[in-house]
């Protein structure tokens, strides 16, 4: 049985599954239910200074895709709108009753040293295991020069991180915003400020949709809308890229990463671990189905690790990173070809029309009497995989790697005007 225990920035948890700082972790009631359900840790919804912020009514917008709900979720909710003292008392109570779980407190106060200096001891007194600096919230708070407004300026990231390290003994996790061009800059700034770890991604600035009757962006608040922060399964690819970029960077490779962004099941979790994460933060999937989803996450990850003979989380973290390279390092001599399993084919024709209209005209549409038949034309197939992706039958179209004769990358390709010559 795989050992799922993690130690992340000095914080222990029985499994890597944490709930991200968000509505599910706003109150003692919810967090107790989460811990009872089996979550390894939570990052308590962001605390700020009193008086608390005020939230609007109508807070979420969702992207449904072909009948599947919440492929993406956006929110315009701000940080905790409850008094600081209420949150602090509840955090203390929960931590006392669940000493084995990770309880990290997310914080966001104005970018002034005294603001941070005064809130840190209050949090520390709860017995919380660490703090996460919310430098990511891309809506509302950023208009007040907090959240992403800090995360987008590496100098601020470094400065605030340094204050926190100076005024608390608690581990400091810096939560990064994806609303920047190069994720390495704020990650390096966090490291320079003394961060014990980073967590990413926070939500992406988004307008989820337009209400065509109200003629306003959704969610509509009194006839108007505003941009929000996007999360859920649809943002997973963006998160994996940013996490991988940090994990493979030589200067940052030692910085622990808590992966966030659309993690919905154990497979997503394994991918986030493989790209460099040590712990995993989940929000949308729990908001969609409730806390019980963690059971299959734990179980599935454990079974998969057993099957692969990975004893612990440390065996998986960063395992794909040596093979996460730049495009210019890819072998241009590699070739793969589509193969259609004719017995599995249900004759929907989607591979044909996708290839015919939008790719390489490499799937022939044949008729054998009444029967339809689709066949790959090897000479035309560039191995793009589109047909395999549009095919509704798992495993019907597979990509078959061809024998490779050596290695040639773009760096040394004759067509490259700036190729490296020996």
């Amino acid at each position: 049985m795989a050992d799922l225990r993690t130690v992340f920035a000095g914080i222990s948890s029985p499994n890597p599954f944490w709930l991200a700082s968000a509505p599910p972790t706003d109150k003692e009631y919810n967090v107790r239910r989460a811990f009872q359900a089996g979550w390894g840790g939570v990052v308590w919804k962001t605390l700020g200074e009193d008086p608390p912020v005020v939230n609007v009514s109508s807070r979420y917008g969702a992207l449904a895709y072909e009948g599947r709900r919440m492929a993406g979720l956006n929110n315009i909710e701000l940080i905790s709108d409850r008094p600081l003292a209420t949150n602090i008392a509840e955090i203390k109570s929960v931590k006392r009753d669940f000493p084995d779980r990770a309880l990290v407190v997310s914080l966001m106060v104005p970018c002034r040293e005294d603001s941070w200096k005064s809130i840190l001891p209050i949090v520390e007194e709860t017995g919380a295991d660490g703090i996460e600096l919310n430098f990511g919230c891309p809506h509302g708070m950023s208009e007040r020069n907090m959240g992403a407004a800090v995360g987008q300026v590496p100098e601020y990231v470094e400065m605030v991180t340094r204050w926190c390290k100076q005024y608390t003994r608690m581990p400091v996790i810096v939560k990064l915003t994806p609303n920047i061009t190069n994720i390495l800059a704020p990650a390096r700034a966090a490291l320079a400020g003394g961060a014990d770890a980073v967590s990413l991604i926070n939500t992406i600035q988004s307008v989820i949709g337009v209400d065509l009757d109200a003629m306003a962006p959704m969610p509509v608040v009194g006839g108007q809308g505003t941009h929000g922060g996007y999360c859920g399964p649809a943002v997973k690819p963006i998160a994996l890229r940013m996490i991988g970029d940090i994990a493979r960077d030589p200067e940052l490779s030692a910085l622990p990463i808590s992966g966030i962004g659309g993690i919905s099941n154990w497979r997503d979790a394994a991918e986030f671990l493989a790209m460099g994460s040590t712990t995993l933060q989940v929000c949308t999937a729990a908001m969609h189905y409730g806390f019980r989803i963690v059971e299959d996450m734990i179980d599935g990850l454990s079974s998969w690790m057993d099957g692969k003979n990975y004893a612990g989380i440390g065996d998986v973290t960063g395992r794909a990173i040596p093979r996460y390279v730049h495009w210019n390092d890819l072998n241009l001599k590699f070739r793969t070809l589509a193969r259609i399993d004719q017995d599995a084919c249900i004759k929907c024709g989607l591979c044909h029309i996708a290839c015919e209209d939008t790719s390489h005209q490499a799937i022939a549409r044949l008729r054998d009497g009444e029967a339809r038949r689709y066949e790959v034309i090897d000479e035309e197939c560039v191995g793009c995989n589109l047909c395999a992706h549009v095919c509704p039958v798992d495993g019907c179209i597979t990509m078959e790697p061809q024998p490779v004769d050596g290695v040639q990358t773009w760096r040394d390709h004759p067509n490259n005007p700036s190729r490296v010559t020996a």
Partner: protein
Amino acid sequence: MNATPDIACGRLSALELSQNFADAHPALTAPQAALEADRCLYCFDAPCMEACPTSIDIPKFIKAIATGNLAGSARTILESNILGGSCARVCPTEILCEQACVHNSLEAGKPVRIGALQRFATDWQMDHGGQPFTRAPLTGRRVAVVGAGPAGLACAHRLAMHGHDVVLFDRHAQPGGLNSYGVAAYKLADDFAQREVAFLMEIGGIAFQGGVTVGRDVTVSALGAEYDAVFLATGLAGVRALGLAGETLDGVMDAVSFIETVRSNDKKDVPVGRRVVVIGGGNTAVDAAVQARRLGADEVTLVYRRGGEHMSATSVEREWAQTNGVTVRLWAAPQRLLAEDGALTGIAFARGRAGADGRVVYDPEDSFTLAADMVLKAIGQVFLPAHAEGEHIAVEGGRIVVDGQYRTSMPGVYAGGDCIVGEDLTVAAVRDGRDAAEAIDKALRAGDGPGRGVEQENG
């Protein structure tokens, strides 16, 4: 003395009757339709579309349901099949579009519910959008359409769309043909047949004349002289007889008449036997048998001369009969009608089996008897040649002969639907009517129209 069989009206309460003749398959709700539409894979070169006699672009109309474009969805259906609403209700989809659905390859028996989705879109159109088509500039041409069933209606609508004026004749008082008089009431509940006709006629340019029997009240030649073209869609107005003594006994009737009685009257006024035997293996037999049950018959037995696989009713229809309490007996041929004191008491059948050459062999010595107050004959309908009698219209094998353009051997006279060779399906009749209208339109525009003709009209 003359006894009478136990045939009576009002075997069930008004409430029971209204429940029994309500919609057999309720419409999808909007959320159900959305879920079902999302199951469609939007196949390219879709097998379902090929399996539809009217070639409705099924993936396109289902995708439009999924996106909430119900007007576009309905238009896609109706431009191929203006009777898409009734076809959605009466088509044996299990042997047409839904049988071809690729989902059957993933999980047998779980095709996309194409018929139900088609109903959802066409219902929406009739409830919200009205007639979606408009007429082309009027041509001044007039076409006589004989028979106001699916073929005739489809032809009339398409001709009207092309700007021609149509007079639609039918021997019945109401238009609709089999949809109004010939299929089970619960398949087209809530007066759907008449509502659909009204919807279709909204295009304008179609005048209906009921109570006119061609061959009796007016001849095809006379119509040919008066109109620019004639389309015959008279269906199969005759029924086959058993050829047994006693067929005129009270209680022995053809299933077509029985269904027409059910469709034309308040259900409480429709007489039905306590014990009913239906002879036949097609949809008419099933519709008669189930409606007899639903009118309150105690025992209904459907007897077919061959095996279940030979029935023209689909397995879904057969199961529908069985779940409605109809006993299905196979491999039995009617032998003798039984009567006592001049009153029908039952019918004797000879048991049969498939012979070595595949033909069924009946053993007259091996027989059984079913007690019956009512025997309904549903052993096939035939073209009544009287409609074409005295005309130069070739008839072969009991059907009007047409060419690829639906032209009969008589110039300017076209035919389609059940009265020509082909599958006897509503949806095939619609295709015939539509395509014949296209052929007529083409001919009229080319100037080789018969009757008054182009030159004559212009001159």
